């Protein structure tokens, strides 16, 4: 069996047994071809992925000498500074740290499940479902710059759509500077993320729901399921692998969030994230060491969180397969 599989594998690959004649010269041209094809992609990867990650790790143990402009080894100083800042919430590092985990919760526990329900509802081909599917996807084809800009028009303090509506309804006391008020800014940015984030998940999950054999759903219908039972007992288990992927993507994305708060509130009013802190440190403060330490911590925490979530998702999947 094993031998057969191996032979098959070889077949798939080819190369050596396809061009047996004059094999040495052929082999050389083949190797040159492989080299030429891979040269640039690998170089690009080595620089921008491999080297950058390694260098980030190195930077996190170094501090910039402001006079000489050189990076010097400094042990765990950056990490100490980072943790102090987080604990004392100086430069709102603590808030940023907390927010990153709130975003994790938002992406995994709110946006994912809402998307799933939306996909389920739209899979019933309710009136206007094509229109909804098309419109929900719009945030994915428009630049985040324009999306956040339009969002800020909606919530602008004067001449903003929401405040205007409130005034028209005589609810003047409810109007506020939505994106400039520590009480509402973060929740507003969260709502933005839900508003703009459902469409993509909906596309992926709808694709998975459409692939469930229709006889399974009909069979459940004859079995007499309610919509809720159909959703929980048939739909969710059937598309669990896809939902797991969507969830993992959301979890990973949570640790990269920075554009939304940056563009909507400049990271102020308690909306910053660790990723945004990294960006701010590099582009603003120039503290490369601290930024890199934050980057490393972010990557490690992200890895642990995603790993745990994946464990859970896999356990559910094992139960159903």
């Amino acid at each position: 069996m094993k031998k057969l599989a191996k032979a098959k594998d070889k077949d798939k690959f080819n190369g050596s047994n396809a061009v047996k004649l004059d094999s040495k010269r052929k082999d050389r041209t083949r190797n040159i071809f492989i080299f030429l094809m891979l040269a640039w992609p690998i170089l690009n990867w080595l620089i921008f992925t491999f080297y950058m990650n390694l260098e980030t790790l190195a930077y996190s143990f170094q501090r910039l000498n402001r006079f000489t402009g050189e990076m010097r080894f400094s042990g765990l100083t950056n990490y100490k500074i980072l943790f102090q800042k987080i604990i004392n919430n100086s430069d709102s590092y603590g808030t940023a740290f907390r927010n990153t985990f709130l975003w994790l919760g938002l992406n995994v526990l709110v946006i994912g499940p809402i998307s799933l329900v939306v996909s389920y509802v739209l899979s019933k081909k309710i009136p206007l479902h094509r229109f909804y599917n098309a419109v929900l996807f719009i945030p994915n084809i428009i630049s985040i710059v324009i999306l956040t800009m339009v969002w800020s028009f909606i919530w602008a303090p004067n001449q903003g759509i929401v405040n205007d509506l409130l005034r028209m309804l005589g609810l003047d006391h409810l109007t506020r500077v939505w994106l400039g008020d520590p009480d509402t800014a973060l929740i507003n940015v969260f709502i933005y993320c839900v508003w703009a984030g459902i469409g993509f998940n909906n596309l992926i999950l709808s694709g998975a729901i459409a692939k469930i054999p229709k006889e399974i759903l009909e069979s459940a219908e004859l079995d007499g399921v309610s919509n809720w039972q159909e959703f929980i007992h048939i739909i969710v288990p059937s598309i669990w692998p896809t939902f797991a992927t969507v969830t993992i993507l959301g979890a990973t994305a949570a640790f990269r969030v920075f554009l939304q708060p940056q563009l909507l509130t400049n990271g102020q009013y308690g909306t910053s994230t660790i990723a945004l802190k990294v960006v701010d440190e590099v582009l603003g403060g120039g503290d490369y060491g601290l930024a890199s330490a934050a980057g490393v911590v972010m990557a490690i925490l992200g890895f642990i969180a995603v790993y745990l979530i994946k464990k859970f998702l896999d356990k559910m999947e094992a139960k159903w397969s």
Partner: protein
Amino acid sequence: MGRKFSKPVLIIAEVLLFIYAVSLIFPYIWVFINSFKSVPEFYSSTWSLPESFSLTNYIRALKETNMLSYFKWSIIVTLVGTALQMIFSAMTAFVLAKYKFKGNAFIYSCAIAGFLIPTTGTLAPLYVFLKNTGLFNIYGLIVMYATGMGTNMVIYYSFFKKISWSYAEAAFIDGAGHFRVFWNIMLPMAREASIAVGITSAIRIWNDYFLPSILLTNPKVQTVAVGLRSLQVQQQYNATWTVLFAAVILATLPTILLYIIFQDKISKGFLMGGLKE
């Protein structure tokens, strides 16, 4: 389709989805309507229809801002960036999927590992690297887009895996070389992957904000997304909102038009590329 919804559930679902859909569209309509008003008219009546559909704001947007130049650079960056991304991804994927050699599997897992690590964290060394190599310009941007080991490669990879090698063998017997087999035989057969990769890459590059915002330091060379952002920041001081509205409409119109025309293709492309960031 399975079990149908009962009347009340259906009505609730329709109402909620309709409100959501309206919230996604209405702001653009609001921006569109107000883009025809003069600044004082906008301040006095945000909700009325414009007194006249004058194109003043659009002319100003084109003249006073560099909208046309933004468009030019966005188009250049998108075309070049997308083309390079497609070619390099296809090249890498083809070799990894169809040629057996030492390190093949290792390179593939490197690629996978690469896009699992969050890139934002590595900004500091990237910044230093770009500064040292003098890549704070459009060339640097293109170099960074010219990747061949990202999710696009994975899409091509799964396609090439499915194509039988006997086509290549037939071509070899006809006297074709390796590159000709790749370019004239295999790549055309992976047309569906090319469409998916092309569409999604183009949309992503066109809409990208972060990379161009740090790399493009020359104010004369800016993409639409970056240019619009700086316009928005300026508005906070001179408050000519209506011009910004016109600019927003100008910037979104091409994308929306393309989306309306190619909606099925675009959705399919995203679905296939599906599981990427």
